[in-house]
Protein backbone atom coordinates (compact mmCIF):
# COMPACT_ATOMS: atom_id res chain seq x y z
CA UNK A 1 0.00 0.00 0.00
CA UNK A 2 1.41 3.37 -0.97
CA UNK A 3 1.13 6.24 1.41
CA UNK A 4 -1.22 8.89 0.02
CA UNK A 5 -0.79 12.48 1.16
CA UNK A 6 -3.32 14.23 -1.05
CA UNK A 7 -6.65 13.12 -2.45
CA UNK A 8 -8.58 14.96 -5.14
CA UNK A 9 -12.20 13.77 -5.44
CA UNK A 10 -14.84 14.52 -8.08
CA UNK A 11 -13.21 17.85 -8.66
CA UNK A 12 -14.49 20.46 -11.11
CA UNK A 13 -13.11 23.95 -11.63
CA UNK A 14 -13.26 26.81 -14.08
CA UNK A 15 -13.75 30.49 -14.70
CA UNK A 16 -17.26 31.88 -15.09
CA UNK A 17 -18.93 29.82 -17.79
CA UNK A 18 -15.72 28.14 -18.88
CA UNK A 19 -15.29 24.70 -17.36
CA UNK A 20 -11.58 23.92 -17.24
CA UNK A 21 -11.49 20.77 -15.14
CA UNK A 22 -14.02 17.96 -15.27
CA UNK A 23 -14.42 15.32 -12.62
CA UNK A 24 -10.80 14.92 -11.58
CA UNK A 25 -10.00 12.04 -9.23
CA UNK A 26 -6.40 11.58 -8.25
CA UNK A 27 -4.34 10.47 -5.26
CA UNK A 28 -0.84 11.86 -4.75
CA UNK A 29 1.77 9.59 -3.21
CA UNK A 30 3.96 10.87 -0.37
CA UNK A 31 7.62 11.64 -1.07
CA UNK A 32 7.35 10.99 -4.78
CA UNK A 33 7.41 13.25 -7.79
CA UNK A 34 4.07 13.39 -9.57
CA UNK A 35 3.97 15.12 -12.93
CA UNK A 36 0.84 16.67 -14.38
CA UNK A 37 1.38 16.48 -18.09
CA UNK A 38 -0.63 17.58 -21.06
CA UNK A 39 -0.82 20.04 -23.94
CA UNK A 40 -1.20 23.78 -23.36
CA UNK A 41 -4.59 24.78 -22.07
CA UNK A 42 -5.50 21.31 -20.82
CA UNK A 43 -6.09 22.53 -17.28
CA UNK A 44 -2.97 21.21 -15.56
CA UNK A 45 -2.00 24.62 -14.20
CA UNK A 46 -5.55 25.24 -12.96
CA UNK A 47 -5.45 21.89 -11.16
CA UNK A 48 -2.16 22.59 -9.41
CA UNK A 49 -3.39 26.06 -8.42
CA UNK A 50 -6.44 24.47 -6.81
CA UNK A 51 -4.23 22.40 -4.51
CA UNK A 52 -3.03 25.48 -2.62
CA UNK A 53 -6.19 27.48 -3.32
CA UNK A 54 -4.47 30.03 -5.54
CA UNK A 55 -7.09 29.28 -8.20
CA UNK A 56 -9.85 31.02 -6.28
CA UNK A 57 -7.93 34.32 -6.44
CA UNK A 58 -8.66 34.57 -10.15
CA UNK A 59 -11.60 36.57 -11.33
CA UNK A 60 -14.83 34.54 -11.62
CA UNK A 61 -13.04 31.37 -10.52
CA UNK A 62 -15.19 28.54 -9.21
CA UNK A 63 -14.64 24.97 -8.02
CA UNK A 64 -16.70 21.98 -6.95
CA UNK A 65 -15.63 18.76 -5.31
CA UNK A 66 -13.10 17.98 -2.60
CA UNK A 67 -9.39 17.96 -2.03
CA UNK A 68 -8.04 16.30 1.12
CA UNK A 69 -4.60 16.94 2.57
CA UNK A 70 -3.77 14.19 5.07
CA UNK A 71 -7.48 13.45 5.27
CA UNK A 72 -8.53 17.03 6.00
CA UNK A 73 -10.48 19.04 3.45
CA UNK A 74 -8.33 21.94 2.26
CA UNK A 75 -11.46 24.04 1.75
CA UNK A 76 -12.12 23.98 5.47
CA UNK A 77 -8.61 25.30 6.20
CA UNK A 78 -7.50 28.91 6.24
CA UNK A 79 -5.86 29.52 2.83
CA UNK A 80 -2.96 31.23 4.62
CA UNK A 81 -2.27 28.11 6.70
CA UNK A 82 -2.77 25.78 3.76
CA UNK A 83 -0.30 27.69 1.60
CA UNK A 84 2.43 27.29 4.19
CA UNK A 85 1.87 23.53 4.09
CA UNK A 86 1.56 23.41 0.32
CA UNK A 87 4.23 25.65 -1.18
CA UNK A 88 4.33 26.78 -4.78
CA UNK A 89 7.00 27.71 -7.29
CA UNK A 90 5.93 29.52 -10.42
CA UNK A 91 6.76 29.45 -14.09
CA UNK A 92 8.64 32.73 -13.99
CA UNK A 93 11.20 33.12 -11.21
CA UNK A 94 9.72 35.73 -8.88
CA UNK A 95 12.04 36.65 -6.01
CA UNK A 96 10.91 39.74 -4.11
CA UNK A 97 12.62 42.65 -5.82
CA UNK A 98 12.86 44.74 -2.66
CA UNK A 99 14.53 42.06 -0.56
CA UNK A 100 18.08 40.71 -0.46
CA UNK A 101 18.93 37.08 -1.20
CA UNK A 102 19.10 36.46 2.56
CA UNK A 103 15.73 38.12 3.18
CA UNK A 104 14.17 36.34 0.22
CA UNK A 105 14.86 32.93 1.77
CA UNK A 106 13.25 34.18 4.98
CA UNK A 107 10.41 36.03 3.24
CA UNK A 108 7.76 33.63 4.55
CA UNK A 109 8.84 34.50 8.10
CA UNK A 110 9.84 38.15 7.73
CA UNK A 111 6.79 39.33 5.82
CA UNK A 112 4.51 37.33 8.06
CA UNK A 113 5.96 39.16 11.03
CA UNK A 114 7.38 36.01 12.62
CA UNK A 115 10.35 37.00 14.78
CA UNK A 116 13.40 34.76 14.65
CA UNK A 117 16.74 34.94 16.42
CA UNK A 118 19.76 35.85 14.32
CA UNK A 119 21.32 32.38 14.66
CA UNK A 120 18.08 30.76 13.66
CA UNK A 121 17.78 33.01 10.60
CA UNK A 122 21.33 32.20 9.59
CA UNK A 123 20.63 28.52 10.01
CA UNK A 124 17.43 28.59 7.92
CA UNK A 125 19.11 30.57 5.15
CA UNK A 126 22.18 28.34 4.97
CA UNK A 127 20.22 25.11 5.25
CA UNK A 128 17.75 25.98 2.54
CA UNK A 129 20.24 27.52 0.15
CA UNK A 130 22.26 24.32 0.52
CA UNK A 131 19.17 22.24 -0.19
CA UNK A 132 18.81 23.99 -3.55
CA UNK A 133 22.58 23.90 -4.21
CA UNK A 134 22.82 27.68 -4.28
CA UNK A 135 24.81 28.24 -1.10
CA UNK A 136 28.27 28.05 -2.65
CA UNK A 137 27.29 30.44 -5.42
CA UNK A 138 25.75 33.13 -3.23
CA UNK A 139 27.25 32.82 0.24
CA UNK A 140 29.45 35.88 -0.36
CA UNK A 141 26.66 38.03 -1.72
CA UNK A 142 23.74 37.27 0.56
CA UNK A 143 23.08 40.98 0.91
CA UNK A 144 22.57 41.66 -2.76
CA UNK A 145 19.04 41.87 -4.05
CA UNK A 146 17.58 38.57 -5.22
CA UNK A 147 16.93 39.98 -8.65
CA UNK A 148 20.68 40.28 -9.31
CA UNK A 149 20.93 36.52 -9.81
CA UNK A 150 20.61 34.68 -13.10
CA UNK A 151 17.26 33.14 -14.06
CA UNK A 152 18.22 29.63 -12.92
CA UNK A 153 19.64 30.93 -9.65
CA UNK A 154 16.52 33.02 -9.06
CA UNK A 155 14.33 29.97 -9.56
CA UNK A 156 16.43 27.98 -7.07
CA UNK A 157 16.15 30.90 -4.67
CA UNK A 158 12.36 30.74 -5.05
CA UNK A 159 12.43 27.02 -4.27
CA UNK A 160 14.59 27.71 -1.19
CA UNK A 161 12.14 30.40 -0.08
CA UNK A 162 9.29 27.90 -0.32
CA UNK A 163 11.22 25.10 1.40
CA UNK A 164 12.16 27.41 4.26
CA UNK A 165 8.58 27.09 5.53
CA UNK A 166 8.95 23.26 5.68
CA UNK A 167 5.97 22.51 3.43
CA UNK A 168 4.51 19.03 3.15
CA UNK A 169 3.94 19.40 -0.57
CA UNK A 170 5.90 21.41 -3.11
CA UNK A 171 3.95 22.45 -6.19
CA UNK A 172 5.91 23.52 -9.24
CA UNK A 173 4.18 25.11 -12.20
CA UNK A 174 6.46 24.56 -15.21
CA UNK A 175 9.42 25.72 -13.15
CA UNK A 176 11.95 25.36 -15.94
CA UNK A 177 10.05 26.69 -18.92
CA UNK A 178 11.81 30.06 -18.80
CA UNK A 179 15.27 28.61 -18.08
CA UNK A 180 18.17 27.44 -20.21
CA UNK A 181 18.91 23.69 -20.55
CA UNK A 182 21.74 23.71 -18.00
CA UNK A 183 19.63 25.36 -15.30
CA UNK A 184 16.79 23.00 -16.19
CA UNK A 185 18.95 19.94 -15.53
CA UNK A 186 20.17 21.46 -12.26
CA UNK A 187 16.62 21.98 -11.05
CA UNK A 188 15.59 18.49 -12.09
CA UNK A 189 18.50 16.95 -10.15
CA UNK A 190 17.54 19.07 -7.21
CA UNK A 191 13.95 17.85 -7.22
CA UNK A 192 15.05 14.23 -7.19
CA UNK A 193 17.04 14.94 -4.04
CA UNK A 194 14.31 17.01 -2.41
CA UNK A 195 11.65 14.33 -2.65
CA UNK A 196 13.20 12.56 0.33
CA UNK A 197 11.66 15.22 2.52
CA UNK A 198 8.77 16.67 0.58
CA UNK A 199 6.12 15.45 -1.82
CA UNK A 200 6.52 17.10 -5.21
CA UNK A 201 3.86 17.84 -7.79
CA UNK A 202 5.16 19.35 -11.00
CA UNK A 203 3.29 20.66 -14.00
CA UNK A 204 5.09 20.25 -17.27
CA UNK A 205 4.35 20.14 -20.94
CA UNK A 206 7.79 18.75 -21.55
CA UNK A 207 7.39 14.99 -22.01
CA UNK A 208 11.07 14.23 -21.65
CA UNK A 209 11.23 16.19 -18.41
CA UNK A 210 8.37 14.12 -17.02
CA UNK A 211 10.10 10.92 -18.10
CA UNK A 212 13.37 12.02 -16.49
CA UNK A 213 12.09 12.88 -13.04
CA UNK A 214 8.53 11.71 -12.42
CA UNK A 215 7.59 8.67 -10.35
CA UNK A 216 3.93 9.11 -11.21
CA UNK A 217 2.39 10.76 -14.22
CA UNK A 218 -1.08 12.17 -14.70
CA UNK A 219 -2.00 12.87 -18.27
CA UNK A 220 -4.62 15.58 -18.56
CA UNK A 221 -6.35 16.41 -21.78
CA UNK A 222 -9.17 18.94 -22.36
CA UNK A 223 -9.79 19.19 -18.64
CA UNK A 224 -10.11 15.48 -18.03
CA UNK A 225 -7.74 13.09 -16.34
CA UNK A 226 -7.08 10.61 -19.11
CA UNK A 227 -4.58 8.38 -17.42
CA UNK A 228 -2.73 8.24 -14.13
CA UNK A 229 -0.17 5.79 -12.86
CA UNK A 230 3.47 4.92 -12.41
CA UNK A 231 5.71 6.75 -14.83
CA UNK A 232 7.39 3.61 -16.22
CA UNK A 233 4.02 2.18 -17.06
CA UNK A 234 2.59 5.31 -18.67
CA UNK A 235 5.69 5.84 -20.77
CA UNK A 236 6.12 2.22 -21.86
CA UNK A 237 2.60 0.89 -22.08
CA UNK A 238 -0.08 3.60 -21.89
CA UNK A 239 -3.57 2.18 -21.67
CA UNK A 240 -5.32 5.02 -23.36
CA UNK A 241 -5.00 5.79 -27.05
CA UNK A 242 -4.90 9.58 -26.51
CA UNK A 243 -2.03 9.21 -24.07
CA UNK A 244 -0.13 7.13 -26.55
CA UNK A 245 -0.70 9.66 -29.32
CA UNK A 246 0.42 12.53 -27.09
CA UNK A 247 3.55 10.70 -25.97
CA UNK A 248 4.46 9.80 -29.51
CA UNK A 249 4.19 13.44 -30.49
CA UNK A 250 1.09 13.25 -32.67
CA UNK A 251 -0.20 16.43 -30.98
CA UNK A 252 0.71 18.68 -28.11
Amino acid at each position, binding site marked *: MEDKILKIENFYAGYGKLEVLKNINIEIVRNKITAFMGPSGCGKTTLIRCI*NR*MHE*LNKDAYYKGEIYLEGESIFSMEP*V*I*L*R*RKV*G*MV*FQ*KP*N*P*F*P*HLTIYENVL*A*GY*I*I*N*GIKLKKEEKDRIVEENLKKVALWDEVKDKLYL*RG*THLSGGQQQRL*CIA*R*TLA*LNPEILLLDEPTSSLDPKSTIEIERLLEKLKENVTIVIVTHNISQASRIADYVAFIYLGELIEYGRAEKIFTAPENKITEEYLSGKFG
Partner: protein
Amino acid sequence: MKILKDRLFKFMVIFLALLTLFPLFSIIFMIFKNGISVINLEFFTSLPKPPGETGGGVLNAIIGTLLLIFFASLIAIPFGLLTGIFLYEYRDKKIGEILTTFVDITQGIPSIVIGIISYLWIVKKMGHFSLISGSFALSLIFLPIIAKSTKETLKMIPSYIIEASLALGISYSRTILKVVLPSSIGGILSGILLGISRISGETAPLLFTAFGNPFLNLNILKPVSSLPHLIFIYTLSPYDNWRKHAWGCALILIIIVSFISFLNKLFLKKWKIKF
Protein backbone atom coordinates in the same frame (compact mmCIF):
# COMPACT_ATOMS: atom_id res chain seq x y z
CA MET B 1 15.41 64.75 -51.52
CA LYS B 2 14.99 62.35 -48.63
CA ILE B 3 18.20 63.54 -47.02
CA LEU B 4 17.10 67.14 -47.39
CA LYS B 5 13.77 66.40 -45.68
CA ASP B 6 15.60 64.58 -42.95
CA ARG B 7 17.89 67.56 -42.37
CA LEU B 8 15.01 70.00 -42.44
CA PHE B 9 13.18 67.94 -39.85
CA LYS B 10 16.21 67.79 -37.60
CA PHE B 11 16.72 71.52 -37.94
CA MET B 12 13.08 72.23 -37.05
CA VAL B 13 13.24 69.99 -33.98
CA ILE B 14 16.36 71.72 -32.67
CA PHE B 15 15.10 75.19 -33.53
CA LEU B 16 11.71 74.74 -31.87
CA ALA B 17 13.24 73.11 -28.82
CA LEU B 18 15.60 76.06 -28.35
CA LEU B 19 12.72 78.45 -28.91
CA THR B 20 10.81 76.77 -26.08
CA LEU B 21 13.77 76.72 -23.77
CA PHE B 22 14.54 80.41 -24.34
CA PRO B 23 11.78 81.86 -22.13
CA LEU B 24 12.55 79.24 -19.50
CA PHE B 25 16.17 80.26 -19.30
CA SER B 26 15.35 83.95 -19.39
CA ILE B 27 12.97 83.52 -16.43
CA ILE B 28 15.64 81.78 -14.39
CA PHE B 29 18.23 84.35 -15.47
CA MET B 30 16.00 87.25 -14.52
CA ILE B 31 15.19 85.80 -11.08
CA PHE B 32 18.85 85.21 -10.41
CA LYS B 33 19.86 88.67 -11.62
CA ASN B 34 17.28 90.46 -9.50
CA GLY B 35 17.24 88.11 -6.57
CA ILE B 36 20.92 87.56 -5.92
CA SER B 37 21.54 91.19 -4.89
CA VAL B 38 19.35 90.93 -1.78
CA ILE B 39 20.51 87.50 -0.73
CA ASN B 40 22.77 87.73 2.30
CA LEU B 41 22.80 86.36 5.82
CA GLU B 42 20.45 89.07 7.07
CA PHE B 43 17.91 88.12 4.43
CA PHE B 44 17.68 84.60 5.80
CA THR B 45 17.94 85.35 9.49
CA SER B 46 15.95 88.50 10.22
CA LEU B 47 12.36 89.64 10.06
CA PRO B 48 11.02 92.26 7.64
CA LYS B 49 11.70 95.89 8.46
CA PRO B 50 8.83 98.39 8.47
CA PRO B 51 7.94 99.77 5.03
CA GLY B 52 10.37 102.33 3.70
CA GLU B 53 13.36 101.13 5.72
CA THR B 54 16.10 99.17 3.97
CA GLY B 55 17.48 95.83 5.08
CA GLY B 56 15.62 93.16 6.98
CA GLY B 57 14.86 89.64 5.84
CA VAL B 58 12.18 87.09 5.20
CA LEU B 59 12.83 84.56 7.97
CA ASN B 60 9.12 84.60 8.81
CA ALA B 61 8.21 83.53 5.27
CA ILE B 62 10.88 80.85 4.99
CA ILE B 63 9.89 79.24 8.29
CA GLY B 64 6.22 79.76 7.41
CA THR B 65 6.55 77.98 4.08
CA LEU B 66 8.43 75.08 5.68
CA LEU B 67 5.80 74.77 8.43
CA LEU B 68 2.93 74.99 5.95
CA ILE B 69 4.49 72.24 3.83
CA PHE B 70 5.25 70.13 6.91
CA PHE B 71 1.70 70.21 8.26
CA ALA B 72 0.17 69.84 4.82
CA SER B 73 2.30 66.71 4.33
CA LEU B 74 1.27 65.43 7.72
CA ILE B 75 -2.36 65.61 6.63
CA ALA B 76 -2.04 64.68 2.97
CA ILE B 77 0.52 61.85 2.95
CA PRO B 78 -1.34 59.29 5.10
CA PHE B 79 -4.72 60.04 3.53
CA GLY B 80 -3.22 60.23 0.04
CA LEU B 81 -1.44 56.90 0.44
CA LEU B 82 -4.54 55.17 1.77
CA THR B 83 -6.68 56.68 -1.00
CA GLY B 84 -4.09 55.54 -3.53
CA ILE B 85 -4.13 51.98 -2.16
CA PHE B 86 -7.93 52.03 -2.23
CA LEU B 87 -8.04 53.25 -5.83
CA TYR B 88 -5.56 50.52 -6.75
CA GLU B 89 -7.50 47.80 -4.93
CA TYR B 90 -10.84 48.72 -6.51
CA ARG B 91 -9.49 49.74 -9.91
CA ASP B 92 -11.65 47.20 -11.74
CA LYS B 93 -14.80 47.94 -9.77
CA LYS B 94 -17.42 50.63 -10.24
CA ILE B 95 -16.62 52.32 -6.92
CA GLY B 96 -12.96 52.58 -7.90
CA GLU B 97 -13.77 54.19 -11.21
CA ILE B 98 -16.14 56.69 -9.62
CA LEU B 99 -13.60 57.62 -6.94
CA THR B 100 -10.80 57.96 -9.48
CA THR B 101 -12.99 60.43 -11.35
CA PHE B 102 -13.57 62.35 -8.12
CA VAL B 103 -9.86 62.45 -7.39
CA ASP B 104 -9.25 63.72 -10.93
CA ILE B 105 -11.85 66.43 -10.44
CA THR B 106 -10.37 67.42 -7.07
CA GLN B 107 -7.00 67.71 -8.75
CA GLY B 108 -8.56 70.04 -11.30
CA ILE B 109 -10.22 72.43 -8.83
CA PRO B 110 -8.64 75.87 -9.16
CA SER B 111 -6.49 76.58 -6.13
CA ILE B 112 -8.33 79.83 -5.37
CA VAL B 113 -11.52 77.79 -4.93
CA ILE B 114 -9.70 75.47 -2.55
CA GLY B 115 -8.70 78.59 -0.64
CA ILE B 116 -12.29 79.78 -0.37
CA ILE B 117 -13.48 76.36 0.75
CA SER B 118 -10.80 76.17 3.43
CA TYR B 119 -11.80 79.65 4.52
CA LEU B 120 -15.44 78.59 4.91
CA TRP B 121 -14.70 75.27 6.56
CA ILE B 122 -11.91 76.23 8.92
CA VAL B 123 -11.16 79.94 9.15
CA LYS B 124 -14.81 80.90 9.64
CA LYS B 125 -15.40 78.12 12.18
CA MET B 126 -12.26 79.03 14.13
CA GLY B 127 -12.91 82.71 13.83
CA HIS B 128 -9.39 83.67 12.70
CA PHE B 129 -6.70 82.95 10.12
CA SER B 130 -4.17 80.27 10.99
CA LEU B 131 -1.21 78.21 9.87
CA ILE B 132 -3.27 75.03 10.13
CA SER B 133 -6.01 76.32 7.83
CA GLY B 134 -3.30 77.14 5.27
CA SER B 135 -1.85 73.65 5.62
CA PHE B 136 -5.32 72.20 5.22
CA ALA B 137 -5.85 74.13 1.98
CA LEU B 138 -2.47 72.96 0.67
CA SER B 139 -3.20 69.38 1.70
CA LEU B 140 -6.35 69.44 -0.44
CA ILE B 141 -4.14 70.19 -3.43
CA PHE B 142 -1.50 67.71 -2.29
CA LEU B 143 -3.77 64.73 -1.56
CA PRO B 144 -4.99 63.89 -5.08
CA ILE B 145 -1.42 64.12 -6.41
CA ILE B 146 -0.25 61.47 -3.94
CA ALA B 147 -3.34 59.31 -4.44
CA LYS B 148 -2.92 59.26 -8.21
CA SER B 149 0.81 58.63 -8.23
CA THR B 150 0.46 55.90 -5.58
CA LYS B 151 -2.22 54.15 -7.61
CA GLU B 152 -0.21 54.35 -10.82
CA THR B 153 2.95 53.09 -9.12
CA LEU B 154 1.18 50.17 -7.45
CA LYS B 155 -0.34 49.22 -10.77
CA MET B 156 3.15 48.71 -12.16
CA ILE B 157 3.95 45.97 -9.64
CA PRO B 158 3.64 42.74 -11.62
CA SER B 159 1.00 40.28 -10.44
CA TYR B 160 3.56 37.48 -10.15
CA ILE B 161 5.19 39.31 -7.24
CA ILE B 162 1.83 39.41 -5.46
CA GLU B 163 1.24 35.72 -6.20
CA ALA B 164 4.69 34.85 -4.85
CA SER B 165 3.76 36.43 -1.56
CA LEU B 166 0.29 34.87 -1.31
CA ALA B 167 1.73 31.45 -2.14
CA LEU B 168 4.00 31.74 0.90
CA GLY B 169 0.94 31.89 3.11
CA ILE B 170 1.18 35.65 3.55
CA SER B 171 -2.17 37.35 3.99
CA TYR B 172 -3.44 39.80 1.40
CA SER B 173 -3.17 42.84 3.63
CA ARG B 174 0.41 42.00 4.58
CA THR B 175 1.20 41.40 0.93
CA ILE B 176 0.04 44.93 0.09
CA LEU B 177 1.80 46.54 3.04
CA LYS B 178 5.04 44.56 3.07
CA VAL B 179 5.56 43.56 -0.55
CA VAL B 180 3.66 45.83 -2.91
CA LEU B 181 4.23 49.13 -1.07
CA PRO B 182 7.96 48.66 -0.44
CA SER B 183 8.48 47.57 -4.03
CA SER B 184 6.94 50.84 -5.19
CA ILE B 185 8.66 53.10 -2.68
CA GLY B 186 10.60 54.98 -5.37
CA GLY B 187 7.51 55.92 -7.33
CA ILE B 188 5.52 56.84 -4.23
CA LEU B 189 8.30 59.10 -2.90
CA SER B 190 8.58 60.69 -6.29
CA GLY B 191 4.83 61.48 -6.21
CA ILE B 192 5.19 63.00 -2.75
CA LEU B 193 8.12 65.18 -3.81
CA LEU B 194 6.26 66.27 -6.92
CA GLY B 195 3.36 67.28 -4.68
CA ILE B 196 5.66 69.21 -2.34
CA SER B 197 7.16 71.22 -5.16
CA ARG B 198 3.66 71.91 -6.41
CA ILE B 199 2.31 73.21 -3.08
CA SER B 200 5.46 75.11 -2.15
CA GLY B 201 4.60 77.63 -4.87
CA GLU B 202 0.87 77.92 -4.18
CA THR B 203 -0.31 81.42 -3.30
CA ALA B 204 -4.02 81.62 -3.88
CA PRO B 205 -5.16 79.11 -1.23
CA LEU B 206 -3.05 80.91 1.38
CA LEU B 207 -4.64 84.33 0.85
CA PHE B 208 -7.70 83.55 2.96
CA THR B 209 -6.15 80.96 5.25
CA ALA B 210 -2.55 81.44 6.39
CA PHE B 211 -3.08 85.11 5.63
CA GLY B 212 0.47 86.28 6.26
CA ASN B 213 2.28 87.58 9.32
CA PRO B 214 5.13 90.08 9.55
CA PHE B 215 6.40 88.32 12.66
CA LEU B 216 7.85 84.88 13.14
CA ASN B 217 5.13 82.46 14.13
CA LEU B 218 5.43 78.83 15.16
CA ASN B 219 1.92 78.49 16.55
CA ILE B 220 -0.35 76.44 14.27
CA LEU B 221 -3.39 78.41 15.41
CA LYS B 222 -1.93 81.81 14.41
CA PRO B 223 -1.55 83.33 10.95
CA VAL B 224 1.75 82.69 9.23
CA SER B 225 3.67 84.15 6.32
CA SER B 226 4.92 82.20 3.33
CA LEU B 227 7.27 82.82 0.43
CA PRO B 228 4.72 82.89 -2.41
CA HIS B 229 2.37 85.02 -0.35
CA LEU B 230 5.16 87.43 0.51
CA ILE B 231 6.08 87.70 -3.17
CA PHE B 232 2.47 88.60 -3.89
CA ILE B 233 2.29 91.27 -1.15
CA TYR B 234 5.75 92.71 -1.79
CA THR B 235 5.36 92.97 -5.55
CA LEU B 236 2.16 94.97 -5.13
CA SER B 237 3.76 97.27 -2.57
CA PRO B 238 5.11 100.72 -3.48
CA TYR B 239 8.35 100.18 -1.53
CA ASP B 240 11.57 99.54 -3.42
CA ASN B 241 13.12 97.46 -0.67
CA TRP B 242 10.07 95.15 -0.52
CA ARG B 243 9.99 94.70 -4.28
CA LYS B 244 13.66 93.71 -4.24
CA HIS B 245 12.91 91.24 -1.46
CA ALA B 246 10.15 89.71 -3.59
CA TRP B 247 12.84 88.76 -6.13
CA GLY B 248 14.89 87.25 -3.35
CA CYS B 249 11.92 85.17 -2.22
CA ALA B 250 11.38 84.01 -5.79
CA LEU B 251 15.00 82.90 -5.96
CA ILE B 252 14.68 80.94 -2.71
CA LEU B 253 11.53 79.25 -4.01
CA ILE B 254 13.25 78.29 -7.25
CA ILE B 255 16.17 76.88 -5.28
CA ILE B 256 13.82 74.87 -3.03
CA VAL B 257 11.99 73.43 -6.01
CA SER B 258 15.23 72.57 -7.82
CA PHE B 259 16.51 70.90 -4.69
CA ILE B 260 13.34 68.79 -4.46
CA SER B 261 13.69 67.81 -8.08
CA PHE B 262 17.30 66.83 -7.43
CA LEU B 263 16.22 64.74 -4.42
CA ASN B 264 13.59 63.13 -6.58
CA LYS B 265 16.20 61.98 -9.11
CA LEU B 266 18.38 60.71 -6.31
CA PHE B 267 15.56 58.70 -4.72
CA LEU B 268 14.41 57.26 -8.01
CA LYS B 269 17.94 56.07 -8.66
CA LYS B 270 18.52 54.74 -5.18
CA TRP B 271 15.20 52.94 -4.82
CA LYS B 272 14.84 51.82 -8.36
CA ILE B 273 13.49 48.31 -8.11
CA LYS B 274 14.32 45.94 -10.91
CA PHE B 275 11.80 43.23 -11.65
